[in-house]
């Protein structure tokens, strides 16, 4: 059982109605997350990374979409099509979640202590006093100074970074096996971001939980994750250990994305990817990236769907040229 990944997503397709037709927003997502591991899910807007995480929580239906195909197994259990009661127990208790805008997820009429105590009481059935005590302990754990006092404050009395710490305290209150962090530091200042990332890293290493870290920021991902899965326009295109992938990316999209990050020093021009991200209702035959790809093979890339293939070294890539590239790297 322990060798089995905690989370495994296979051939996932999620559709939403666009102009009266079911349109795939995620067309082929595949990823595996081991116990105690932190996986970065990287992609630009419209890549389907957030929708994939919503599917893990069984929330696609609530958003008006549907899972059209594929499987999501969490700790050996199938999530797709699972009963609502099971999904409710999964959310909050075994899977914690934090979002980009911490302020918007907190109710301004309740103290921050109430928020955490409520989560504890709902899932653990302890007394009010015990729940409050646990809330204070959690606030202290996530680095809020004078936690007993600050627990009585309202969200507006907290800064953005502190609100994100409160969200983290709520998310870990039931000692989940998996923490999903969707762009958790995107709205924060750079010095605050560094502190929140440190906190997340500490919590993961001391609790042994896994983390699915969703971000568009490759530098941040390189700092906190062991593995990375890259998505483009609804498909997983590359997957592998963070250091190896960043040192020698195999998919042309991953390569271009890494190259477009400014290095140090004044630059005349930045390297760039031509064109723009396709909208979900654009039909692109063959490889979804081929219209923007600089190493497109005419007659191949735009004619047939490309499979995500796993190489002998455990890295996966969805590209016809991947074999040659894997040998070269």
């Amino acid at each position, binding site marked *: 059982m322990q060798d089995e990944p905690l989370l495994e997503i296979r051939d996932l397709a999620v559709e939403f109605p666009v102009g009266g037709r079911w349109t795939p927003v995620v067309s082929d997502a595949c990823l595996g997350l081991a116990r105690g591991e932190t996986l970065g899910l990287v992609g*630009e807007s419209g890549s389907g990374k957030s929708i994939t995480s919503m599917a893990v929580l069984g929330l696609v239906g609530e958003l008006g979409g549907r899972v059209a195909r594929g499987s999501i197994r969490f700790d050996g259990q199938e999530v797709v099509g699972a009963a609502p009661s099971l999904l409710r127990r999964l959310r909050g208790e075994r899977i914690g979640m934090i979002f980009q805008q911490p302020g918007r997820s907190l109710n301004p009429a309740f103290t921050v202590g109430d928020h955490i105590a409520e989560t504890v009481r709902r899932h653990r059935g302890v007394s009010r006093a015990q729940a409050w005590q646990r809330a204070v302990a959690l606030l202290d754990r996530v680095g809020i100074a004078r936690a007993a006092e600050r627990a009585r404050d309202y969200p507006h009395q907290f800064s953005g970074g502190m609100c994100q710490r409160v969200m983290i305290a709520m998310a870990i209150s039931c000692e989940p096996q998996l923490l999903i962090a969707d762009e958790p530091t995107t709205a924060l200042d750079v010095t605050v971001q560094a502190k929140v990332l440190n906190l997340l890293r500490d919590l993961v290493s001391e609790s042994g939980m896994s983390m699915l870290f969703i971000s*568009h920021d490759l530098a941040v991902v390189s700092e906190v994750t062991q593995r990375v899965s890259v998505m483009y326009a609804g498909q997983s295109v590359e997957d592998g250990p963070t250091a190896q992938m960043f040192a020698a990316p195999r998919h042309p999209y991953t390569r271009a994305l890494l190259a*477009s990050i400014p290095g*140090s020093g*004044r*630059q005349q021009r930045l390297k760039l990817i031509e064109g723009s991200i396709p909208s979900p209702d654009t039909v692109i035959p063959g490889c979804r990236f081929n219209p923007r790809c600089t190493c497109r093979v005419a007659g191949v890339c735009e004619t047939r769907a490309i499979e995500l293939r796993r190489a002998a070294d455990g890295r996966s890539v969805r590209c016809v040229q991947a074999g040659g590239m894997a040998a070269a790297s």
Partner: protein
Amino acid sequence: MTLLVVEGLSKSYPRKRDFFGRVTDRLDAVSDVGFTLGRGETLSIVGESGAGKSTVGRLILRLIEPDRGRIVLDGVDLRAMPRGALRAHRRHMQMIFQDPFSSLDPRVEIGRSIEEPMLLHLPLSARERRARALALLERVGLDGGYAGRLPSGLSGGQLQRVAIARALAVNPKIIVCDEPVAALDVSVRAQVLNLMAELQEEFGMSYLFISHDLSIVRAISDRVAVMSKGRLVEIGPTEEVFAAPRNDYTVELIRAIPAMAHG
């Protein structure tokens, strides 16, 4: 050659009032900020949210009225000027904002949005304006067909190109860019930054680039100014500031930049 001189720029807001409505406490949003901007130069202002960097941009354009300070553009003191006369000088300073979706009127076609500043500032006929708008659209990489579209039909990167075309429409000497690529996707960001660099070479205007993203600032600026709590704490050539920051806050800011795992 110096184009813009800013001296002692200050702006504070009332924070607390007593029972009689008298101000008892003020928040110094910007205090005593001074710098110069050369012709064709890119100066970046960095700092965290609340540092006052966006307020400086708006004060220079007098979108917000400063409490104190001098703003001298090409030898003309803009603060000494009455608001009516200021309008004619506004064309020399244009602005690009972070969110292209909310900086263009959703009901006005792209082409007309670009023509609008010309209407105020340039003595052109309707036909000349139209032709200039189309030429500018093409110059920022969008074909003329986009002129008739509404903003909702364009992506964020395309809209930011439109915002750039509109700023260029009146041949400004300075463009204040307030986080112009912060809302854009990584792969589109480089396209917009490169376009801005090309246009600067072609037209020779200066950029005052306001950003919290130090890795971008390092790649595109000649000089960088660091702000903290309303004050300018450090200013100098970009590589000098990054290699040997003098101020403690600058050190902290540079240390917090997430580093890529590889070289």
